[in-house]
């Protein structure tokens, strides 16, 4: 059995982390969804047991804003799960011997767009957090939860990496077609 190289070991670890993160955010998304649906039919508050976000008062004051807030939380969690799923897909498909393929380039671009979209959504949510919650304390908690500050930088960085990959594919193709 051929011993694993350092790169392959790192990729295996990253794949595991990506899968775990995907499972984590998927569970968060499903949990939010279930709690929201349950809150419609019962008087139990929608409470995020991890982030201590209690939206009971908001639900009683304005159900539309409550729905909007919860929808934003669900969509953000879902998008994060999608990003991690795509990341694990890249790690699985990448071939160490020949990493520069158009498929990898496109996958990286898609992830960068997803991360950019997460940032935009988080920015909108943070901008309208006070309008959504009508409470300063809750608005602050919501802003903290929807913090996506590093995502813009990540999206930019990943996009640059995807363009480097694209150039790598072009150079590789030229090299392969040089007789």
């Amino acid at each position, binding site marked *: 059995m051929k011993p694993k190289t350092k790169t392959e070991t790192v990729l295996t670890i990253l794949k595991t982390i990506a899968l775990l993160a995907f499972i984590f955010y998927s569970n968060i998304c499903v949990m939010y969804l279930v709690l929201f649906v349950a809150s419609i039919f019962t008087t139990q508050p929608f409470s995020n047991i991890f982030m201590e976000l209690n939206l009971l008062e908001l639900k009683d004051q304005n159900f539309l804003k409550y729905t909007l807030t919860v929808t934003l939380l669900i969509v953000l969690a879902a998008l994060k799960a999608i990003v991690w799923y795509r990341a694990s897909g890249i790690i699985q498909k990448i071939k160490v011997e020949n990493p520069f393929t158009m498929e990898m380039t496109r996958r990286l671009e898609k992830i960068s767009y997803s991360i950019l979209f997460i940032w935009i959504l988080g920015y909108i949510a943070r901008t309208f957090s006070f309008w959504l919650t009508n409470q300063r304390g809750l608005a602050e908690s919501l802003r903290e939860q929807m913090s996506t500050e590093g995502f813009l930088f990540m999206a930019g960085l990943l996009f640059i990496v995807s363009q480097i990959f694209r150039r790598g594919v072009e150079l590789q193709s030229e090299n392969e*077609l*040089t*007789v």
Partner: protein
Amino acid sequence: MAIVVNLDVMMARRKVSLNELSEKVNITLSNLSILKTGKAKAIRFSTLEAICEALDCQPGDILEYT
């Protein structure tokens, strides 16, 4: 592409097959095929020299600008 490769024309004139040329110039059949079908993006001088020597011709006989 503006550069046309007339390798098949020279091969026909010299009555050399692709296999024979591949053995003479020590280039794989797939690479020669890439060159012959016009898919090549670049050619090394060493390759051009080897082909010209094998087919007893000038580079201008193999490459043409249209």
